């Protein structure tokens, strides 16, 4: 799936501090696999509270980084897990994971572009 990512919104949120945003993206790339693992493990165990917790954390990070679509998907996971709806939760988790994977690729390629841009300067 294609990942919508509003980089400009994320940049504005951190007051235009691009080095900080790059650092935060790096933190996200490093940290999100832990949440992804927690999410899939909780899903396999039908641990709805665990799913909610992991989705809630991802929702905060995705929203902060301007990934509004991912934030909405994480919210959908939270709500479906709150309703103990296993099928819908699994469906939204799958969409969320696909979204994050696409976003990860965008972020990695964006980091390359930024390096090029900095090299040109």
């Amino acid at each position, binding site marked *: 799936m294609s990942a919508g990512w509003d980089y400009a919104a994320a940049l*504005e*949120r951190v*007051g235009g501090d691009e080095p900080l945003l790059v650092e935060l993206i790096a933190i996200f790339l490093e*940290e999100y696999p832990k949440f992804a693992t927690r999410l899939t493990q909780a899903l396999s165990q039908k641990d709805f509270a665990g799913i909610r917790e992991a989705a*809630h*954390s991802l929702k*905060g990070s995705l*929203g902060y980084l301007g990934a509004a679509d991912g934030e909405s998907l994480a919210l959908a996971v939270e709500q479906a897990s709150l309703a103990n709806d296993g099928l819908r939760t699994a469906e939204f988790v799958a969409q969320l994971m696909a979204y994050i994977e696409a976003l990860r690729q965008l972020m990695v390629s964006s980091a390359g572009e930024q390096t090029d841009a900095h090299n040109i300067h």
Partner: protein
Amino acid sequence: MPTTFTEPAPEPTAPFTEKNSSPVGRVLVAEDDPLYRRALEHFLSRKGYAVQLAGDGLQALADATAPDAARLIVLDWMMPGLPGPEVCRRLRATPRDHYQYILLLTAKHTTADIVEGLEAGADDYLTKPFNVQEFFAHIHVGERMIRLQDRLLATQEALRFQATHDPLTGIWNRGALFELLRAEAERVRRKSASLCLFLIDLDHFKRINDEFGHLAGDAVLHEIAQRLSAAVRLYDIVGRYGGRSSSLPPPNCSPNGPINSPNGSGSRFRRLPSGPRTSRSR
């Protein structure tokens, strides 16, 4: 996604000057999400705040209740150990000398969440994802509240002093003196100890007022109070009993003790005044 990057926006808030610099100095940031934790640490330290980081609720509570705890606390809602609202409740359960301002951060944003957070003891509420300008606006509200509280405490202390001290001499006033005497008398009665009380009158004081004026008389009273205060021990009590009399009840003073007569200190009062006036009371 953009392939070119915009110019950095202007500084989110005006740089700190003497006028708006933080009296708080230190901010406790309790946040388990490494991304937000890093962002908050970066924003605050760039503005000159000392940032103390806690990664879970229990650590946040321990840091917030330490003797020299930060006055401004940025608290995440969902944290391992203890959730933010529970940290608030436990922190508020024990009143502390200095009020701590709590800004609760969370991705929860329903009315019920906001009510729960504030009812738990948070002072303010900011939903994630937040903008840095918005974050500092909330931080500045917290600083204003802390400044107001400090001013209130200082005024309270000044009023307490005024209510118990003689404005002219700075020593205990009559009301406070009687209270202290009552407590002292009770203490010595219980311990079957003795109490030494000097009731000192200033001979011919009227002549000073008549000859040099009342301002000079006031200066003499002030000087006498200073000398009396300097002559006694730290735990003795010096107060103004009447218009021109001072009493000196040194606790634990037997009739044969080191201060057994006001004459013993007489030489202190007969010398000429010297040095700047200072206000001191016991």
